């Protein structure tokens, strides 16, 4: 799966979870860029991304991801 497809699918998940169609994520996007993205919504987001790409993040990965770009890197390695 190429990065373009990953980002287009990620974008859909973000828009659903935050119920905001103006969101466009890029590799540099962090929680600071999206108003509703707090630690509680983060849980929902992770689980929605996991379902979208039919993969699971490892505990250590969730803790260390710094931005959407790093999230996409992990997805690229393991997504189905």
């Amino acid at each position, binding site marked *: 799966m190429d990065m373009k497809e990953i980002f287009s699918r990620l974008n859909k998940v973000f828009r659903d979870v935050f119920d905001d169609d103006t969101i466009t994520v890029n590799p540099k996007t962090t929680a600071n860029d999206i108003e509703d993205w707090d630690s509680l919504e983060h849980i*929902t987001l992770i689980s929605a991304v996991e379902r979208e790409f039919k993969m699971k993040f490892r505990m250590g990965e969730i803790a260390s991801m710094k931005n959407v770009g790093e999230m996409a890197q992990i997805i690229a390695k393991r997504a189905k």
Partner: protein
Amino acid sequence: MTELEYPFDTEYIMKKRKSIKKTLMADGTKRLKKRIAVLGGSTTNDIVVYLELFLLNHGIEAEFYQSEYARYWQDAMFPGEELLNFKPDIVFIHTTNRNITNFPVPSDSMEAVDGLLNEEYTKFEQMWQKITETHHCPIIQNNFEMPYYRIMGNRDCSDYRGRSNFVTRLNERFYEYARKTEGFYINDINFISASYGLKEWSNPSYWNMYKYAMCVEAIPEFSFNLANIIKSVFGRNKKALALDLDNTLWGGVVGDDGVDGIQIGQETGVSQSYYEFQTYIKSLKALGIILTVCSKNDHENAIAGLNHPEGALKPDDFIIIKANWENKDRNIAEIASELNIFTDAIVFVDDNPAERAIVQAQLPGVCAPVMDSVENYITTLDRSGYFEVTNFSEDDLKRNSMYKANAERRAQQASFADYTEYLLSLNMTAVIDDFIPIYLQRITQLTNKSNQFNVTTKRYTPTEMEEVFESGDYIRLYGKLIDKFGDNGVVSVVIGHKNGDALDIDLWIMSCRVLKRDMELAMLDRLVERCREQGITTIKGYYYPTAKNGMVRDLFERFGFAKLSEDADGNTVWTLDTASYEIQNHVIKVEDNSSIQQ
């Protein structure tokens, strides 16, 4: 909203929770407003998010208080200003086996483990009592799910040192308290976690990362189950089933295949599945759920099918059988009006998606679960929680026979020329008097179920009713009606609070199964009598209109009250002078509590 009905698509709900909430809030439904305090032993935020959605779908708009993380015990024992001012209508304690402080260890003696058990249990019981004293409201308490690992392997469940055994014993102590305590309900997460899959449910990463005691994907299911208890406590249960026949209660089409050709009984796997489903429906009847048939069939064929010797259900099990070629929505509307209930109290069970769609389009509020294949029928109906039992009274046991007797009464009514003559022929006797303990549960239940004959639509929790019962500031009446066809049980309740030499009526309700029997007049006669005895000269009645209580808009006027005021919303206030009042009931013989064997 069908998206929130069982079996719902968890993934969809999780993704669309925000837009679902917006849609529900904007649909114009008038909802009950309730305040729910959630005292958590782990993270509760998502639990509340989904609980809110499911409750909105049940017609309840909830406001929530949530403890600071894991502060459930402190909040219960030493409630702060915020919680006290919140004045919860219900308190939910969300604890799980992660909150058990001391599990036994292999070196413990049996006495030591008994001690641990007592210690854990006492902590909870103290908390429940404190909550009851402080907030006077119902409590919902999780039981404990099984631990996800077993140190002793299979022996863990039976050995007193095993954690599984410890959890089982602790749960049993909780149930003991639930059995003897009104207004205390167990949220059975032991069942829900097992049904979901304990291994997935208990995935420790959710605890270790987010302090959720279950996996995030299981939360909608958890909240759905919890919402069922809450809506049941607040009187939002369904009352009746309207059941299709062909391919719903048996396999095949009786009109085409003949009675011998339908699949029901012990012959094949399919016929056994239908038999099992019929048995399930029959058990619902025993709980007081009203059974009716709504089928496109010739009447004779329907009856022949129900008389199949291998079937568990018989024609006699149904209060109403509508087997004809009319549209089903019309039949269901007629069933509702014959039973004197609203269509939204009916669950329509039909294997045909087209029929379900028509009924739901024509009669909003009727639930029509997806019945896709016979092996799923029981689970779908059961898990939907339409009839979630939070209170179970004598009356529930007798409900079906009472509705049957009503049908007989209707048949007889036709043979009388004069309605009064008919009423007299019923040989009615009523007991109308102050509340007595054996009926308190039924009285409370009635206040939460009556929507139509209900002037104020005030609801009482068991604890609130207990307070009314014990206070000297009220005049209370319950009415029980018996006639030659049977005992209708407690069917009417009036509560008024004394205000100098006046009585303000807080509640006047009557079950619709005794409409047009002059029971309300008998109640009024007794109320005036009690007022006079206590020196009360004026009775003030209040009517607050809702979508459902139009039938009592002019109740006080019919009683002979004079209208004092009416505001722009149609709320009216009425007054009656007790001195000049004359007895109005002439068809019911009225007795008092001394006629009841207690």
